[in-house]
């Protein structure tokens, strides 16, 4: 077994979660703040698409946009960057595919914050920025964290879109899921077993972590007076 795919996968998922977390949380915040119910549901639908479409479809769109002749591909080309079939492409694929999980978790987390706290904060004169940083985000911390862990795990297991846009270049874009595919196709079942076991164990630990974490957070801030 070669360790490189494990390292590439961890590196990809770790970098991707930074983008996913910031973009997903920011989008969820903006959508929550929007006053139009129609706009909110339209954004929800669009941002959930990568979750329900086959990852190959997402990969296909990424190729259209970031391929050498795509609009972003051309822009990147002008500054001398070729994204497709490179390691950053694995980050792009993992970010896009994991985004819906982060976005939806953050949306749900923000929605469950009692609006009365936000209203109280406004009447005592706190600016919206302070309300977000000191109140909304801390009160949503458990939802945001479990969303991030879920998104990280999803990024770790990303296959379809990665194969489409990043390819299968050993030592560059061969992540663990792709290495498993290659191993099975090449008849190297022992190698495939090893990757599979590692992936299952790592993913299990993360998802288990969410459960332990969210159990321990429950009731932390619940007010007596609400009952």
């Amino acid at each position: 077994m070669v360790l490189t795919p494990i390292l590439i996968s961890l590196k990809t998922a770790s970098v991707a979660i930074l983008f996913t977390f910031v973009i997903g949380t920011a989008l969820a915040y903006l959508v929550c703040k929007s006053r139009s119910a129609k706009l909110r549901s339209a954004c929800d639908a669009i941002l959930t698409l990568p979750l329900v479409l086959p990852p190959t479809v997402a990969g296909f769109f990424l190729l259209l946009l970031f391929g050498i002749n795509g609009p972003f591909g051309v822009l990147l080309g002008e500054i001398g960057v070729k994204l497709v079939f490179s390691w950053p492409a694995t980050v792009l694929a993992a970010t896009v595919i994991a985004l819906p999980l982060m976005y939806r978790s953050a949306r749900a987390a923000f929605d469950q914050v009692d609006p009365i706290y936000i209203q109280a904060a406004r009447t005592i004169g706190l600016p919206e920025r302070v309300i977000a940083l000191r109140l909304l985000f801390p009160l949503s911390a458990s939802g945001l964290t479990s969303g991030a862990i879920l998104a990280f795990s999803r990024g770790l297991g990303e296959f379809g879109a990665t194969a489409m846009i990043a390819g299968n270049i050993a030592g560059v874009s061969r992540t663990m899921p792709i290495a498993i595919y290659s191993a099975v196709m090449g008849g190297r079942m022992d190698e495939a077993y090893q990757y599979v076991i590692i992936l299952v164990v790592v993913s299990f630990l993360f998802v288990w972590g969410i459960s332990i974490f969210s159990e321990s957070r429950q009731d932390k801030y619940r007010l007596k007076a609400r009952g």
Partner: protein
Amino acid sequence: MSLSVEIRKKYKGFTLDVSFRTEEGETLALLGASGSGKSITLKCIAGLLTPDEGRITVGDRVLFDSAAKIDMKPQARRVGYLFQNYALFPNMTVRQNIEIAWRPGQAPMGRGAAAGNTADRGAAAGNTADRGAAVDALLERFQLAAQALQYPVQLSGGQQQRAALARIYASNPEVLLLDEPFSALDSFLRENMQVELKHDIKGYDGDVVLVTHSRDEAYRIAERLVILDGGAVVAEGPLAGIFADPVTAQAARITGCKNISHIEKTGGTRFFAEDWGIELDAGREILPEHGYAGIRAHDFFVCGEGEGFPVSIDETVKGPFETSVLLRTPGQRAGDAPIWWIVPRGFDPFGTERLSVSPEKILLLR
């Protein structure tokens, strides 16, 4: 700084159309049943809801004016809002809750000597040290020094209310809105808290608007009363005046008058109360607009033959200090509601054959 409100807001099957104003430094109670629109009114003043049209001003500051397209953000209104469940930020200690509301150049208002001193220094410098001193003064004033580092979940209902008030004072509002402040408390705590709140808002220089469905609460805390029913103001005026003469049948009912009857003038000062089946003398001219009469349940007294009217006892409901007696008269129709009579606990109402009421206790209502 007097608050003037004149707003309209339409909902499905409900229209809010209220206008009232407070005199400077006065405590006003908005009294009404649930669904009368009192909480919506309060939220419109604070800027948490937007009226369809109208105007809200504090002194010469315009908070909202639909004609001039002014709709100030809640942050800029300087309207403090005490929520029903106090809405203390659960992720912050009592101290942090108060600290975050305090801003440089502002300081807690009120008569407390310590608070007054910090006000001057806060306005001059407005730095962190001043904030600390101002918060200390507030914690002291609201007897929360021992709870400063505790989280809201650890506080009793009364402490939560004081912390919420301290937080509002730190934000230095010109108007203080109290939204059913006692509804989250157990009934035995409620009266203590009413006294405490009355004491706490005494030192407050701005106007206070209390929203409540309890006439007792309104009576204990406010000086002026606005009665809301179905989204409209049905009575407005000094508290004692409205309780003595509610003017309308709705206002009489909301101020706790149990007996209200449709009336028919029978001549001069006399009228026939259709729902009670009796004829009474109001002792004063009955005007054409007087369609109803009201008698408070405490105002009947037992009398002998030749006075008053005959009654029979239907039922009695015993309370801890008083007994409610439900009565009928021979003249009442089958569907008419019983007449309520409230007597002291030790009094035995059985055997009572005739009751009377002094003419001046009869409320003539529109």
